[in-house]
């Protein structure tokens, strides 16, 4: 469904991605784990064309999206809940969700709204509150819900567990599993919380310094001593 071949990305002179090869099959949950600064967020943003890959090729289904404008890429069915959540702070929760749905058929809006409010009931309670006033966990739920409002076939999630209480993390991971299973949404999940991510994912990639160093099935990676040592200390 999604393939990256030899993707290199630069910020000015800094080479953040040094040739990434990665593949996500329809229906999978795939995770990228790695330390801070490894290039995980850059990978997700490069898929969406912000920044654009300098070298290599990115394909989504039958399309070559390497040079496509961002707003066209996401209209093919890719949605992202980005690093830092990026909720529109001066818009209400409902308006944030409307923004998520801005390119989808308005006939589906009520139905999709009910669906994400069922996944995250707190969003219904907070409907008319401004995004900037939500707690971190609520903002994360809103970010995922907003991404789902575009009816994506591929969902890119950047560290949804960051800074959240364990109970909230569990709720969010359950929702990720549910939308993958029931709504047939393929997921590419970036996490520092490697234990949870590898448990949930079908397959995983380990990223170090702008390169993929290891890949394999989720439980396979969980059992590798080098992965345990580097990413699961105390996990």
């Amino acid at each position, binding site marked *: 469904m999604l393939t990256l071949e030899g993707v290199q990305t630069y910020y000015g002179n800094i080479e953040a991605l040094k040739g990434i090869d990665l593949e996500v099959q329809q229906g999978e949950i795939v995770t990228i784990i790695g330390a801070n600064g490894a290039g995980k967020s850059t990978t997700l943003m490069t898929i969406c064309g*912000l920044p654009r890959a300098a070298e290599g090729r990115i394909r989504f289904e039958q399309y070559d999206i390497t040079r496509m404008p961002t*707003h066209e890429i996401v209209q093919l069915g890719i949605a992202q809940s980005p690093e830092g959540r*990026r909720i529109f702070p001066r*818009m209400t929760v409902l308006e944030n969700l409307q923004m998520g749905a801005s*390119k989808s058929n308005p006939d589906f809006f009520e139905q999709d709204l009910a669906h994400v409010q069922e996944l995250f009931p707190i969003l219904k309670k907070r409907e008319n509150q401004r995004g900037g006033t939500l707690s971190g966990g609520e903002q994360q739920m809103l970010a995922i819900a907003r991404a789902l409002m575009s009816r994506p076939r591929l969902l890119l999630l950047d560290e949804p567990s960051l800074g959240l209480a364990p109970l909230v993390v569990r709720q969010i991971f359950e929702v990720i599993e549910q939308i993958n299973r029931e709504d047939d949404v393929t997921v590419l999940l970036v996490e520092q919380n490697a234990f949870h991510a590898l448990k949930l994912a079908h397959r995983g990639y380990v990223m170090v310094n702008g390169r993929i160093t290891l890949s394999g099935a989720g439980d396979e990676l969980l059992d590798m001593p080098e992965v345990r040592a580097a990413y699961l200390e105390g996990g």
Partner: protein
Amino acid sequence: MEYFIQQLINGVTLGSIYGLIAIGYTMVYGIIGMINFAHGDIFMVGAFVSLIIFVALGLAGVTFVPLAFAIVLIVAIVITSVYGWTVERLAYRPLRGSFRLAPLISAIGMSIFLQNFVQLAQGARVKPMPPMITGGFTFLEGSDFSITLSWMQIIIVSLTVVLMAGFALLIARTPLGRAQRACEQDRTMAALLGVNVDRTISLTFVMGAALAAVAGMMFLLYYGVIDFYIGFLAGIKAFTAAVLGGIGSLPGAMLGGLLIGLIETFWSAYFTIEYKDVAAFSILVLALIFRPYGLLGKPEIEKV
């Protein structure tokens, strides 16, 4: 008292014109964080296009005033919109991402170009326009000082109110307005949600230009004379209004426009007309000392 009310009427009329221009400044600032320095000239072009079309319609024998009015309005809006769009494409978009002052310099360049172009094409002398809409109401006739409320003033103020209400509604309720606010708050995220950011920014310039065109036409009809330089002064006043109200805030631009119009009118009426511009700017400086973000502007505390 009668004198006061008369000045109030005049001030509100002038303030309406400033307010309409100020909206263009504030919206463009909101979405790209920069001042459109060619915006005053868009207003001036709006006035000139109106004049030319009025004269042409007169020669063509269109004497039904509401029809002429409507035609002029549409043509002026279309032409200034194209100009607003061009300013964004030529002066701002290619320089997005370069150092902050670069687009301002290119916009000032376009502004000077336009002033000189109009000066050459239309001449440097002031252009008169015979009054089209005359008459009105006179109150307290026979006393020391009567109050007049002209039809033109009624038209200006009501058209402004309608436009501002429609505009506020558009920004608050429609998908386009929502996309504009999204680009204002986080352009990257807006793009990730499928918003065509470039097009949204272009449309913002165009919408500001359309309002400035209406202001230009009203200015022409109200004062009856224009020259190539009116864009500069009115532009600075409207810019002051936008800053006074809180740059980036739509209600702020409307309020600021009204206040600047009132200050200028009252100052000329009660003090001296020579210093009316100084008065408006002094009030701005004072206001900014006590409210650095303007009357209705908000400091960016909510950034997540």
